[in-house]
């Protein structure tokens, strides 16, 4: 009887153990398309991009025989941003970001991302140059190219997290550092409110999956 009981418990334990092994608890993230309203913070703009996961680490935390799952995903993200600051400039910026997203067992997530990129400004008014001889020329598309580094942080909510193609909403703040600007650098905070869609089939990603237990 005792032996039967031990065998039965072993079987139950084995089934449970099998149930927890290599299958990801949350479906693997896919390439997402991001669309965001951007504010800088007084002036409007937009941010469009694509994020592609390449590494997913799923962490199982067990406490009092209860398991919680945390998913940490690394993405490479490419974004095109724009804002309009009247009388100052219109700025287009292309950013590549290395995005770190931490998804809890609920739908909430946090993320941060360092980025590098390139930006092009268009001056917010007609622009003239005056030659040494006094001849005045009006410049079209006058503006400057700046290198850019950025740091972003924020969070959001992932709807339908069990589905392969969930929708995410997010809010994040970035600080753009444009250089060289006036022989120095120029800092510009931007806030974005956006949505990430993933279809699953568009640029299908196959991120490496790592599972860890704690």
């Amino acid at each position, binding site marked *: 009887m005792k032996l039967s009981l031990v065998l039965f418990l072993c079987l139950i334990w084995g089934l449970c153990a099998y149930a927890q092994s290599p299958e990801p608890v949350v479906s693997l993230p896919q390439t997402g398309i991001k669309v965001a309203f951007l504010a800088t913070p007084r002036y409007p703009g937009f941010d469009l991009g694509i994020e592609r996961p390449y590494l997913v680490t799923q962490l199982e935390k067990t406490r009092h025989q209860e398991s919680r799952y945390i998913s940490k995903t690394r993405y490479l993200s490419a974004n095109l941003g724009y804002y309009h600051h009247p009388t100052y400039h219109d700025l*287009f910026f292309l950013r590549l970001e290395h995005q770190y997203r931490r998804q809890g067992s609920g739908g909430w997530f946090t993320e941060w991302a360092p980025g590098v990129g390139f930006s092009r*400004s268009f001056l917010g008014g*007609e622009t*003239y140059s005056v030659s040494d001889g006094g001849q005045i020329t009006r410049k079209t598309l006058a503006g400057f190219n700046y290198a850019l580094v950025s740091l972003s942080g924020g969070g959001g909510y992932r709807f339908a997290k069990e589905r392969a193609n969930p929708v995410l909403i997010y809010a994040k703040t970035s600080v753009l550092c444009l250089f060289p*600007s006036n*022989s120095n650098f120029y800092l510009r905070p931007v806030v974005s409110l956006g949505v990430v869609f993933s279809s699953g089939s568009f640029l299908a990603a196959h991120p490496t999956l790592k599972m860890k237990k704690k």
Partner: protein
Amino acid sequence: MKKLLLIISLGMAIVGCQREEITIGTHASDVFYLLNKGSAMPVRVHGNTASKTFMLMIHGGPGGDAIIYRSPYVVENLEEEIAMVYWDQRNGGATQGGANGANDEVDIFIEDLEKMVALLKHRYGDDISLFVNGHSWGGFLTPAFLQKDQNQYLVKGWIQSAGAHNIPLLNGYARQMLLDKAAIEIAAGNNTAKWTEIQDFCNSITLPLNAEKGLKLNGYCFEGQTLTPELPGIEYNGTAVYLQNDFPLLQLTTGRNSVPISLTNWLFTDQQLSDNMSVITIPTLLLFGKYDYVCPPLLADDIESRIQSAYKRKVVFEKSGHGVMFGADEQAYWTEVIAFIRTFK
């Protein structure tokens, strides 16, 4: 991908196609840029351009900005009658551009100002009456511009507002003013520790000063103003002015970058324009604050005694320091300015 590139190009083209807007009217609000040697300097023209009378504000710093002078009083009173021109100098205000590190000498600023005047006449007509008003560092740049070649004949009049045209003289006057005031305030028991520190510093220095000592004295001059009981606090909401004019607030740090700092260091190595002041013959208005230790009012006497202008007027405002156009004497200051302009436009 091709479509995306096309959309980006179209977007850039739409943004870039800026229509030339020159407003001749009683309530103009034009913003345009002067591009010179890697720097795009914003120029804001507000007010009555139909009057054909323009006053160009030449701001302080180096590295300051011009829009700060656009106070509610100026909007309501001056812009109704004349056109005010707020020009941000290179590496200051809302100026944009890339690496601009070599352009840290006054000659390039004079060239910018010459081109600025040419541009204003190009846009608003050769027949405009133009006045230049230099404040603080702008009070060095303006006479430097006027003394060069025939530049003074491009303008109808010069207003010197608490300007710094002679640094050795300025240092001497500032030191003496601070010593005099420190003695009074220490005797009265007001801010004794700070005034004693200022007094000790002033007693420890010998003229002429090197740039380091000169700048330290300059710092005490600003501090001295905050400790002067005769100076009422200035209730001026600069942030509101910046926001109303879409000024990029984070560019306010530009004045602390290496180029204006390098220019300031150059200025404080005994630069002076007194020797050549006698070439100036245009109408001149000298406006200073009685408690301005930064640019002491005695500097006005030096200009007054040297220029050859048929008309020169000096006014020292009793309740003002260095920000002579912002404080308790704001109305009196602008009344003097507008009276001068009405006379000589």
